[in-house]
């Protein structure tokens, strides 16, 4: 269990921070305002392995441990949460299920493209009537000769507007008492794969979140991820992992807002002294720092359980629940410390404040995280 940062983690943090501050900081506010996806930055990120964080070396990945991968997402999100989101979704819920469930041929075909960032990945579970209740997916996949024909609509797909490959959850039949779902590897160039308009969202606006329409979309039968009927298994495992990523992202947003607030509190003069000398502001800063640090320990604990091969779903949910709550609270306090300026788009904390909220919603709402945590605790035999 890692309590203190080791030299490798420190160096990874420094390197990603340097990249983010040099390349992302100058454009973060603008791409948020204009809601544009910065392709040129993605091209700079590709050779630095941002799209193959934990993939094995033989497939072109960086083979990072989970704490390192979390640090990468933290540091990107500290400066630009929309890019942090693109990276964590690509790695955490598109690349990860590939590494865990794909067959040898599927890995050989798709992993090098995903790890190099040639293909950007997306994960498509959510539908209009299937959010937290992931079992009520209505998209169908029907076998016809050597292929599956997919029909349905996916909504709120992160990276949807730019993805080259999407993992689509679809119904493939009924088991006794419940629907059977499966996961399909669908390339965006497949006939019948259509993208909707980009969503006009509150935060993370530079990430192209869209709907995906599958209209008689034909997928070769070898593009089933894992086996037919594995949908729920793959979905749950992927979400456990994705939650680590969202926790890291939330923590990065909180860290960015906190640092901005501390800097501002030292600079802003009222009553002829910096507002940082006022006890109320000091209390805010103390609470922010304490909660961020606690969140970080919770996150790294989930990461180290994952790396040790132990079950980590409950801890990932705890980290996601706590870090996203902290992100909303810290960004709100950061706006408060900035006063009227914090409510202005002139200051970054306004963007952090908008970006933080969704971390309490996607990849399982806070309510769902509590359900997962409580279910794990209550299913244990003894304390």
């Amino acid at each position, binding site marked *: 269990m890692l309590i203190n940062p080791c*030299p*490798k983690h*420190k*160096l*990874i943090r*420094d*390197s*990603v921070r*340097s*990249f983010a501050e040099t390349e992302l900081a100058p454009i973060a506010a603008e791409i948020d305002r204009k809601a544009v996806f910065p392709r040129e930055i993605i091209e*700079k990120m590709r*050779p*630095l*392995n*941002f799209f*193959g*964080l934990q993939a094995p*070396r033989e497939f072109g*990945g*960086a*083979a*990072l441990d989970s704490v*390192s991968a979390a640090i*990468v997402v933290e540091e990107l999100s500290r400066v630009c949460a929309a890019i942090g989101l693109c990276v964590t979704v690509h790695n955490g819920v598109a690349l990860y299920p590939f590494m865990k469930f794909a067959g040898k041929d599927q890995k050989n075909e798709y992993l090098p493209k995903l790890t190099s960032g040639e293909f950007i990945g997306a994960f498509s579970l959510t539908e209009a009537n299937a959010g937290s209740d992931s079992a009520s997916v209505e998209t169908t996949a029907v076998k016809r000769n050597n292929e599956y024909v997919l029909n349905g609509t996916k909504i709120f797909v992160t990276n949807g507007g730019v993805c080259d490959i999407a993992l689509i959850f679809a119904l493939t039949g009924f088991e006794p008492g419940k629907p059977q779902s499966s996961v399909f590897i669908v390339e965006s160039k497949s006939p019948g794969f259509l993208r909707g308009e980009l969503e006009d969202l509150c935060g993370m606006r530079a990430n192209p979140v869209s709907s995906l329409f599958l209209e008689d979309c034909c997928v070769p039968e070898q593009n089933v991820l894992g086996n037919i009927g594995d949908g729920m298994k793959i979905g749950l495992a992927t979400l456990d992992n994705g939650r680590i990523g969202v926790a890291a992202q939330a923590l990065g947003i909180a860290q960015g807002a906190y640092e901005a607030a501390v800097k501002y509190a030292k600079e802003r003069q009222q009553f002829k002294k910096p507002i940082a000398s006022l006890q109320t502001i000091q209390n805010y800063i103390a609470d922010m720092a304490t909660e961020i640090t606690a969140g970080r320990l919770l996150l790294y604990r989930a990461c180290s359980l994952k790396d040790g091969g132990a079950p980590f779903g409950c801890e990932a949910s705890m980290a996601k629940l706590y870090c996203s709550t902290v992100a909303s609270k810290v960004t709100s306090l950061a706006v408060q410390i900035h006063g009227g300026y914090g409510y202005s788009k002139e200051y970054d904390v306004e963007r952090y404040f908008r970006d933080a909220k969704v971390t309490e919603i996607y990849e399982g709402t806070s309510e769902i995280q509590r359900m997962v945590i409580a279910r794990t605790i209550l299913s244990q035999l003894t304390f």
Partner: protein
Amino acid sequence: MKLVVCIKQVPKVTELPWDEKTGTLRRDLASGMMNPACKHALEAALQIKENHNASITVITMGPPAAEEMLREALAMGADEAILICDWLLAGSDTFATSLVLKEAIKKQCPKFDLILCGAYTADSETAQVGPQLAEELDLPAAAYVEKMEITGKTLRVRRLVDNFRETLEMEFPALVTVSMENYKPRYTSLAGLENAFDQKDVSVLDAKSLGLSSSSIEQKGSRTRVRKVFLRKAQKGNVVLQGAASNVVHEFLDRYQRKIGTVIGKSIEEKKQHDDK
């Protein structure tokens, strides 16, 4: 081709408290980073490596924590890393440092073609170690190099000195100190960082392994002593000149014309004389 890059770990912040007894900076209070000019020197070496099939050894003298900076250098593309680490060497001045570096280079990479150093460090900024090392090793050297071209055994360098650029040529083996004009350091890939910790080694040398004893270090070692360290205090104050515009301008010139740059000063002076006439 064999390249040696001497790098130094410096504190991340610019203003550090110092130990009042010894006059040295309390480096333990800040986390370290690779000195920016050293990073440019490493980048220059990496570009030479890409074009001339070279191998790069990075070398530093510092505390155990400096190892992490060497790992970063390995991640960027250096082939070998050497840490000279011994408390006997703590507090070495630039003269002692260059002596130690000389011994390490003679022992570990005697067949080098080119040594690259950062032109100066962000913490003490003496810019002395590179030139002193060249002197110790009796090498042709150029400081503040901003561009290099290699043809066979000849190195042509361009450097900025005061207000002019000069181009110099020298034969290998040689030494250059690299400025921060060009050679913007590359970003380190995540796979490179992971490999640098997982698959590469840092050799650690102490004073004894370099043939340096405590008496020889004392005898040949630091020639300088820091007598006093102080912060230069900048005084800021607003001065408001009031009255008619012509009076204000004259009063301004009376007070400040010596502080205004020569060229501007002259022309204002002439203008003033002209107006007086």
